């Protein structure tokens, strides 16, 4: 495989609140390649969104990146560590939106209600290119057509509230692609949408990826969406990566007890009617009260007292690009 376009190493982002320190992301490492989709999946508080915000350097106070590297290969071939850049400096502003596009969950609140779709698109286009207003407007109409919006020449003058949820999310995708980025981060892009609209948006992202060789980071809580879209998967729990690997291994040979339990607890349209679901006992702990040792141990069916509640497991390779952090899989003796 080619060189990764984005390399994240040991990323840690903590939130320093009055009540204590929340380790929202605690040592995330993964590679992202052109033309491939990396899925980051987990439940609330697992750190998946903070990971995305860290890459874009838009973590809000009291949050701060406390360690690690985010190595982006720029179009010139030069590799920069985004952690070392000032978050509002010129270089970071070029990268954010210019080289890394972002699609948020909530298209209603991420689009301005005071400006037409066209005005927002033209601003994004001109910010990252030298196009004239007229040329940028033509480009905006092209982009709206690209994301499958009917009658783009009229819709360019519409306000976001005049559009349906699906069309708004298409506008968000058009905005994210305005500056022709190589990396697209989609944070729960279909969570607020109905299933038939979700199918449209997922298809759109997959098509654009094929056409433009985009590297996509797809963040979601929905294992179904991951199974449909991802090539590689990172499973997170309470700020920690618990398992990562190729999508087929994660779904058909999961090794971490959390991945295994999570997969068993998903309702499925293929299940027998009224079948009871397998459950994970308890609930996700408060982020300020993260358990010692392995954060999953209080809910883990395989927890080993004296070990899992004391030592934090390290990541162990258990197969082809398949890694897990669990004491069940001992470190190979070097």
């Amino acid at each position, binding site marked *: 495989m080619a060189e990764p376009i984005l390399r994240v190493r040991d990323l840690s982002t903590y939130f320093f609140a009055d009540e204590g320190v929340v380790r929202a992301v605690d040592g995330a490492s993964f590679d992202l390649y052109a033309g491939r989709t990396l899925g980051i999946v987990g*439940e*609330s508080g697992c750190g998946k969104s903070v990971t995305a915000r860290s890459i874009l350097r838009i973590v809000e106070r009291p949050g701060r990146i406390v360690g690690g590297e985010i190595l982006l290969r720029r179009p010139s071939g030069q590799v920069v560590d985004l952690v070392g850049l000032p978050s509002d400096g010129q270089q970071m502003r070029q990268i954010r939106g210019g080289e890394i596009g972002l699609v948020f969950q909530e298209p209603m609140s991420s689009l301005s209600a005071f400006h037409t779709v066209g005005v927002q698109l033209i601003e994004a286009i001109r910010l990252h290119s030298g196009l004239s207003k007229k040329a940028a407007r033509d480009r905006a109409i092209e982009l709206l057509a690209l994301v499958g919006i009917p009658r783009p020449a009229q819709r360019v003058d519409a306000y976001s509230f005049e559009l*349906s*949820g*699906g*069309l708004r999310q298409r506008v968000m995708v058009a905005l994210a692609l305005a500056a022709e980025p190589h990396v697209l981060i989609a944070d729960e892009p279909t969570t607020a949408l*109905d*299933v*038939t*609209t*979700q*199918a*449209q948006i*997922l*298809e759109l992202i997959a098509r654009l990826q094929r056409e433009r060789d985009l590297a996509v980071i797809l963040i979601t*809580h*929905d*294992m*179904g*969406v*991951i*199974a*449909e879209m*991802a090539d590689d998967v990172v499973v997170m729990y309470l700020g920690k990566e618990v398992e990562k690997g190729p*999508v*087929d291994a994660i*779904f*058909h040979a999961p090794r971490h007890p959390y991945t295994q*339990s*999570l*997969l068993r*607890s*998903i*309702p*499925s*349209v*293929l*299940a*027998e*009617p*009224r*079948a*009871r*679901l*397998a*459950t*994970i006992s308890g*609930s*996700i702990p408060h982020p300020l009260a993260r358990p010692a040792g392995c954060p999953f141990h209080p*809910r883990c069916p395989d927890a080993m007292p004296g070990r899992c509640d004391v030592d934090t497991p390290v990541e162990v390779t258990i197969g082809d690009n398949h890694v897990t952090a669990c004491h069940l899989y001992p470190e190979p003796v070097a």
Partner: protein
Amino acid sequence: MTTPVLEVQGLRKHFPIKQGLLGRVAGHVRAVDDVSFSIAHGETLSLVGESGCGKTTTSRCILRAITPTSGRILFRDEKGDAIDVATLDRKGLKPLRRRMQMIFQDPFSSLNPRMTIAEIIGEPLLVQGMSDARERQARVSELLRLVQLPSAYLNRFPHAFSGGQRQRIGIARALALNPSLIVADEPVSALDVSVQAQIVNLMLDLQDQLGLTYLFVAHDLSVVKHVSHRVAVMYAGRIVETAPTTRLFTAPRHPYTEALLSAVPVPDPRRRAQRIVLQGDVADPSNPPPGCHFHPRCEYATEQCRIETPELTEIEPGHEVRCLRAAELSLRGVASQ
């Protein structure tokens, strides 16, 4: 399953669209437009559909949170007599309120933060006349046990609980008065997967234990598969298909049901679906298309579908479809494991 607890016949709810200074009525949003179904004692009927299809408006009419425009909502009391809830006034409704309860979607906004758990669950008991504090306390403890929460939690406030625990408290409150019908509007959609499974199982267990009757309103077909005996699919204010759960999923007869099923992402990368991706958006209930509401997005639509409005027709015992071509089409469902 015996006589229906609830029978809805030709229910309509039209909201006026007012315009201008004088509030002139410029049109109507036909949120619910001729909906009929029934629910038997001990049964779960799921009402599914996408946003704006009218499923929540239907449930609010049944609970009489809003007054329907027309139609009948027949609710059977303990003696077996049917009462039409649709036309009752406030006073007439009060004795029925205890018999219909609701479980809400958002466990964070549906519990009063200033009341203890004991007060929240005990309030319906107090309102309906259980004035003896000790009796109430005993009942509240029993309810907590039913929803598998320790009775030590009685004097705590909602903020101390997780989403899943709060949803258990909401269920205990709904059970307090032994209702004949529980309307659950998206009860698990705000919860994390690992917690969602616990609540789905709890609702199934309580139904078996207490013989509850659920009207389950949801958009998530996977959850619906796990809870329902029968499913009704709504589109743009109308029911387009009703069938027993297995039939609806494996042998749908309405093109919208087929498309809806194929759009659900299956958690298995080896089954990446050959999806039917519907074009366009959900029909606008203030200006629905003529004929079959679904025809502009339907790949099987003919000229006739643009003109003629199909009726909900029984094509097999217990399986009703609103499609002119139901008899001739062969549609794809999802295979069981």
